């Protein structure tokens, strides 16, 4: 599976995401610098990593969302290429308008860094097919701006269309309706605050994130 991970100035989970992709798919992703205007051809998957792109200046993800490569990412997403944004990557996707809503400062104002229990709300998506609907999994979070907010109509639409992929089971950051991860209307773009690439191998003490990449690989290979 040919994939790419976009690297912004200030990304710090790009290598983790690349290692996860290589471990599961057997092929290392191309690392693409944010200043590029084109992605490699024939990509089956694009990852936007966690971190602090542009030092979170203005708003988390705001600068990265306007970087040259994001036009190419938006075009690829439009063509149906699967795109996963983790943490800062989720913030970038909302700022770029590829996902609705916004990620605001955590309601408790603290940086939250711990494993959190999540409920898998949608097990039919191309990212979540290896999970059971309603299953509880544990994935680490590490963020300051993970408080997902959108207007009530948008939230109702996300819920009604099965686009809430993951929900926090405990209070984490003040997110509306406990939303931890959402899909776009075509289902090929997933943004989530928890870090599945940090729950991937025995040394992590937790393998719950691995099935996300395995599910993606299976769907793409099918």
């Amino acid at each position, binding site marked *: 599976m040919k994939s790419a991970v976009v690297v912004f100035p200030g990304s710090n989970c790009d290598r983790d995401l690349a290692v996860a992709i290589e471990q599961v798919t057997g092929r290392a992703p191309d690392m693409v610098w944010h200043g590029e205007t084109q992605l490699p051809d024939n990509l089956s998957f694009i990852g936007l990593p966690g971190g602090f792109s542009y030092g979170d200046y203005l708003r988390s993800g705001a600068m990265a969302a*306007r970087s040259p490569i994001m036009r190419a990412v938006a075009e690829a997403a439009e063509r149906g290429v699967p795109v996963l944004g983790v943490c800062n990557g989720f913030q970038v996707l909302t700022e770029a308008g590829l996902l609705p809503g916004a990620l605001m400062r955590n309601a408790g104002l603290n940086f939250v860094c711990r494993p959190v229990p999540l409920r898998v709300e949608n097990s039919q998506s191309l990212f979540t097919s290896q999970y059971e609907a309603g299953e509880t999994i544990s994935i680490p979070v590490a963020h300051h701006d993970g408080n997902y907010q959108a207007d009530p109509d948008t939230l109702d639409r996300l819920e009604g269309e099965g686009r809430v992929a993951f929900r926090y089971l405990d209070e984490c950051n003040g997110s509306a309706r406990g939303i931890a991860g959402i899909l776009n209307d075509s289902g090929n773009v997933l943004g989530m605050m928890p870090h599945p690439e940090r729950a991937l191998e025995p040394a992590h003490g937790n393998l719950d994130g691995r099935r996300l990449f395995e599910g993606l690989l299976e769907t793409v290979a099918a």
Partner: protein
Amino acid sequence: MKARVFVTLKPGVLDPQGKAIHHALEGLGFGGVNDVRAGKLIELDLADGTSDSDIESMCRKLLANTVIENFRIERLEEPVR
């Protein structure tokens, strides 16, 4: 010419930073503060003749996230010193 852009959270959007500031003011003994909302002030130094619609476009495309924020533009016509 200069312009100032004030970016503020929309009414009803929870502002944890404003709440913390409010709490800290109370801790300093300032009574009578009913609410605090925190925002941003962005100063732009612009070429003469930059139109209002150009500045508004800057706000919509980057300076404010209109999902959660409002913006207000104030033009200052005096020359920059």
